[in-house]
């Protein structure tokens, strides 16, 4: 039976109308940001590998939104929307994709390496699984200083097959580190279905270390947010590491240079997901149904975020390319007065 009022949609009750509108606005912002990146890539303003997060917005928002500003987030290369969710400004994120001096990483990192130390967005990592032990390190530092932040570490489903993941989970459990490992389980690592490279489902793969394992519907922002809000408080209170299988789906190709569908997943499967499991559409339907938002309000939000994204692109466009001298900055944190640091014999 269709739900016809707010009263029947229990999940809505937890949130104020303003909060629900904010969810919509944020997810629309992520979506429009990625669409703009897609456009910019097509005309050569962005180069290299560029991995879009379209379809996975409710994971980024729900898993990061409930955090405090001083909590940590780290992820792999599919990192644009997590950066925004952790409070980074769209302009410097877009400028990083453009490889400009005004980029968050001064144009040195690019799409895969967005970092915001001030916002405690810790990247942006290109080696599958490489970020997982780093998250344990953040957790270690929090405990060492006897503070109460938490760290959320995102990884792809395919990353659970890396040894680094298993080593980090074990250490997190042994030392009760305040780290929440969130697997963005979009069912595929590039062109390989998870079921072809794992004998067990994702949720089972974090077990065996004494870490609680959870599964959530990553397409439902009300579920991901509510779940995370509760979990974060537990971890802050000393519950130790957690493992979350956030079930989601990648609507686009693995990166801008890969096909959306092909031998590894059918057009029909993709259509079914983009139509039936779009986190923005699912929220819209529920808000409309419960009469908590109408078409005009939705359009106004969309206009607002499109403007923000346009401004981000303008900021990126207006930002200069890094000066040639920047090639040698940031390799070392200081010049050594005694010994030579660079050996290419070029002028600096």
């Amino acid at each position: 039976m269709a739900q016809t009022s707010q009263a029947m949609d229990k999940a809505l009750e937890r949130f104020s109308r303003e909060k629900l509108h904010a969810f919509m606005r944020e997810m629309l912002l992520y979506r429009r940001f990625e669409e703009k990146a897609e456009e910019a890539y097509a005309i050569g303003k962005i180069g290299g590998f560029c991995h879009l997060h379209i379809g996975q917005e409710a994971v980024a928002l729900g898993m990061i939104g409930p955090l405090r500003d001083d909590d940590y987030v780290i992820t792999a290369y599919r990192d644009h929307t997590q950066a925004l969710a952790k409070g980074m400004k769209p302009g410097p994120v877009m400028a990083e994709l453009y490889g400009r001096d005004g980029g968050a990483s001064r144009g040195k990192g690019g799409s895969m390496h967005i970092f915001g130390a001030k916002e405690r967005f810790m990247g942006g990592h290109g080696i599958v699984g490489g970020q997982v032990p780093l998250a344990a390190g953040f957790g270690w530092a929090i405990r060492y200083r006897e503070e109460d932040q938490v760290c959320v570490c995102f990884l792809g489903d395919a990353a659970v097959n890396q040894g680094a993941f298993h080593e980090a989970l074990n250490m997190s459990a042994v030392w009760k580190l305040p780290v929440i490992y969130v697997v963005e389980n979009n069912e595929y690592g590039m062109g390989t279905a998870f079921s072809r490279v794992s004998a067990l489902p994702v949720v089972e793969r974090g077990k065996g270390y004494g870490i609680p394992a959870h599964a959530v519907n990553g397409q439902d922002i009300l579920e991901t947010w509510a779940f995370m809000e509760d979990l974060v408080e537990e971890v802050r209170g000393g519950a130790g590491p957690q493992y979350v299988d956030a079930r989601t789906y990648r609507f686009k190709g693995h990166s801008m240079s890969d096909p959306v569908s092909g031998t590894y997943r059918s057009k029909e499967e993709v259509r079914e997901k983009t139509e039936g499991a779009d986190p923005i559409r699912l929220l819209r339907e529920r808000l409309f149904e419960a009469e908590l938002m109408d078409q005009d309000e939705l359009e106004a939000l969309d206009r607002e975020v499109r403007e923000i994204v346009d401004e981000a692109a303008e900021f990126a466009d207006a930002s200069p390319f890094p000066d040639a001298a920047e090639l040698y900055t940031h390799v070392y944190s200081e010049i050594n007065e005694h010994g030579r640091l660079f050996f290419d014999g070029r002028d600096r």
Partner: protein
Amino acid sequence: MPVITYRDALNQALAEEMERDDSVFLMGEEVAEYDGAYKVSKGLLEQFGERRIVDSPISELGFAGLGVGAAMVGLRPVIEFMTFNFSILALDQVINAAAKMYYMTGGQIPVPIVFRGPTGAALQLSAQHSQACETWYVHSPGIKLVTPGTPADAKGLLKASIRDNDPVAFMEGELLYNLKGEVPDPDDGDFVIPLGVADVKREGSDVTIVTHGKMVNEALRAAATLEKDGIEAEIVDLRTLRPLDVEAILRSVHKTNRAVYLEEGWPYVGIGSQIVSIIQEEAFDYLDAPVVRVTQADVPMPYAKNLEKIAKPDAARVVEACNRVLYRN
């Protein structure tokens, strides 16, 4: 002679060796159903089936080690790294197991394995995805290192590498896969190029450019520019870095008395340091100028297009280096 791409040349080599020897199998990420991230293994799953063309999980340390184990008991694995950047986390199995096994066992257990995939930078892939990995491998005794720069070399050397009884790192280039060149027709017999034999890609008498892999093509461009200036550069393509054809280097230096080393990687303990050391030890009296190296800038690869361009070694820098050893400016 048929003209084919570097990618198809590798594909032919794999197919022919798998056809010839049932103990050869290919394992790596996306090599089967997806035809390989760079389509090198296109059609091989269909031809050889799942037993021999195997999609692995993203577990580089694990499947590199599995390959070494399989080689220790008599199979001939070809392990594909999607790129050699990702092999850095498999280096323990390469250096501590594959490279030392024959020695540690007093010759009882050889490890006939090939690790292959692209090395070096493509375009704007940034610091973690744009690394020339030669030094990490060649530094260790027990490993052979092969770096073909043309389609023919790719085919002939891959076949030799698969037949070799030692661990071979076989480094290709993302920007080479579409390169076309003449490769002998498979019907004209087995085309195998022995390891340890350099190839003079261009003859010249004024200056020697020693190089390997993808950079061979950059050296050819530089030589074309120099030629307009009346300078004849000789290009010695090492093709394999261990075993190294020292005689070929010395022969050319004896002739030209000047040398430049060109490589894609970083200078510090780069391949060039070894080559320069050999030249000064074994051909000191023949040199009319210090040997100069052209390398990537000594920094992690930046993403920004303009910075990446100046970070990479290119023909213009090679021309400059040649002029320097010729005292022409």
